[in-house]
């Protein structure tokens, strides 16, 4: 029990100020190395402040002192138990792009595989539905201009002399970027519904893709289809996969009770990966939006289909190389160091 509160405050004030100074220094530069002597001091002062907090905890008329000590102890606790540099972020975009994003993608490749599998099942369903029952197009196709006969559309597009998007290209690209990013982030967020919402969204996306592909292939417009979809689709569709992959990473953390950790810890453990994949998907969709607006919507004779298809194949190849191999050496080195 504290006999004389005033004496107690005078005696302890120096220690609290020392702790505050160390915490301020850490806040100013959280990445600075902590010398052993200062680390010991921090630990000692934290324990002392914690003990002081316990002693004043029962005092009814000292809320300010109690609040000050609580905040001091909470900050010191966060400093000691948080990771190095916690509470800060080092902006290293290049490092993030060439290491963090591709490595994160590969770390959760099972989830990406699951997204691809669900999409393929959806594509088969959509393709079969349109092949067997052409009326199904009315329900499946996402945009009105896709409901008509593909041959008629191709003839109309190729006969058009004027630039339909003249004066609207940037606005169209902006609309595509925001719309697709919203849908992709929605697929990510739906991971919190135990992954059910993400599955439904990915499956529906697959149905639409399959229906469009089969519709154009059956109409004999395969070249137009690839020339139209490949330039932006090889980035846009994988971007949706990456967003949905992040959704499944979340879903696994929600469902994964077998490792014994509480849900908060499981979700906290995957937060970095979810944010990384979400940001990666958004970045890909910015590129896809530009390509769709400035290239994909232009057909022969303005741009040869072969050129568009080659462009799409090169893009797709680069994307596979990026997610498959970039950042591998550093990851391997790190694993070797760990071993």
């Amino acid at each position: 029990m504290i006999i004389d509160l005033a004496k107690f405050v005078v005696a302890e004030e120096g220690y609290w100020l020392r702790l505050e100074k160390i915490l301020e220094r850490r806040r100013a530069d959280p990445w600075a190395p902590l010398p052993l002597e200062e680390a010991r001091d921090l630990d000692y002062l934290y324990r002392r402040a914690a003990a002081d907090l316990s002693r004043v905890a029962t005092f009814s008329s000292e809320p300010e002192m109690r609040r000050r000590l609580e905040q001091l102890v909470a900050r010191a606790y966060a400093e000691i138990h948080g990771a190095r540099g916690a509470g800060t972020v080092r902006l290293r975009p290049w490092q993030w792009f060439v290491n963090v994003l591709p490595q994160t993608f590969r770390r959760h490749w099972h989830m990406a595989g699951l997204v691809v599998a669900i999409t393929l099942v959806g594509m088969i369903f959509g393709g079969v539905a349109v092949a067997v029952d052409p009326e199904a197009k009315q329900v499946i196709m996402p945009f009105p201009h896709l409901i008509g006969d593909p041959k008629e559309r191709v003839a109309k597009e190729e006969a058009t002399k004027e630039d339909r998007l003249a004066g609207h290209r940037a606005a169209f690209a902006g609309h595509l970027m925001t719309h697709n990013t919203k849908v992709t982030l929605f697929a990510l967020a739906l991971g919190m519904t135990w992954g059910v919402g993400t599955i439904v969204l990915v499956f529906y996306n697959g149905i639409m893709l399959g229906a469009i592909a089969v519709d154009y292939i059956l109409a004999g417009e395969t070249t137009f289809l690839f020339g139209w979809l490949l330039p932006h689709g090889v980035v846009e569709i994988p971007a949706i996969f990456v967003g949905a992959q992040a959704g499944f990473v979340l879903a696994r953390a929600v469902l994964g009770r077998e490792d014994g950790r509480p849900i908060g810890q499981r979700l906290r453990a995957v937060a970095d990966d979810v944010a990384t994949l979400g940001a990666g998907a958004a970045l890909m969709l910015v590129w896809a939006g530009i390509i769709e607006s400035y290239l994909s919507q232009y057909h022969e004779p303005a741009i040869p289909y072969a050129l568009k298809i080659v462009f799409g194949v090169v893009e797709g190849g680069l994307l596979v190389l990026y997610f498959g191999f970039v950042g591998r050496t550093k990851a391997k080195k790190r694993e070797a160091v760990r071993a």
Partner: protein
Amino acid sequence: MLEERVDVLRVRTPEGVSFAFLLASPVTRLAAWAIDTGAILAAWSLISAGIALLGLLSADLARGVIAVGYFVFSTGCGIALEWMWNGQTLGKRLLHLRVMDESGLPLRFSQVVVRNLLRAVDVLPVAYLVGGVAAFVSRKSQRLGDVAAATIVVHEPPVAGTDLTGLVLAKYNSLRGQQHIAARLRAKTSPALAHAALQALLRREHFEPAARLELFRELATHFRLLLHLPVELDEGISDEQFLRNVVEVLFGAKSPAPTKQDTVR
């Protein structure tokens, strides 16, 4: 099944130290969100007016930048402010709310990003219904974004010093200088009881005389039982005077210094 809701989240460290966070209610959070939304719309109307000047160069470019700009600004504003202001946005700052890691550890950037991205689901179907329902049924008042990011929103009311204006203290106090008794009094008195005693004295003029005597008698009796005072410290002192002495010790109020005349007498 509804989880049992708590108003306070107590964090117990591995060293056995515990500190508490007051959880923000869903209604307060909704108010903070409304302030943020209003501020974002107001700021965007200014920014978009500036962007519209791009239309002098290219109307198409201006429309494109506005289409992407609003999405980036409205999503990024919450992330940037919560990150830079240590878990606060404008609305949260005004209403004394703060986002924190649910274990009391520092908020990581990825947590800020995830909780803001998950608004896409929380906002469904309208006006944050999913998020609101989740917060109401959650034990820690967490919307889905908070669950996903392992964060909580806490209420940090400013600590106001006790207002002792109007409290008339006596020149003499038998408890003054009795440090053991002062320590026992502070240790045994709950904040609610201390507040009740102070308010009883501050509002004495508002009570009927009989009710006032009864109230002071009850409070003084309670404190006497709590303290087990030696008889000489309590002898010949009215209930009201005793209560004033107790409040002076509890709140450390300054009493008027005895004059020389008082001392001689």
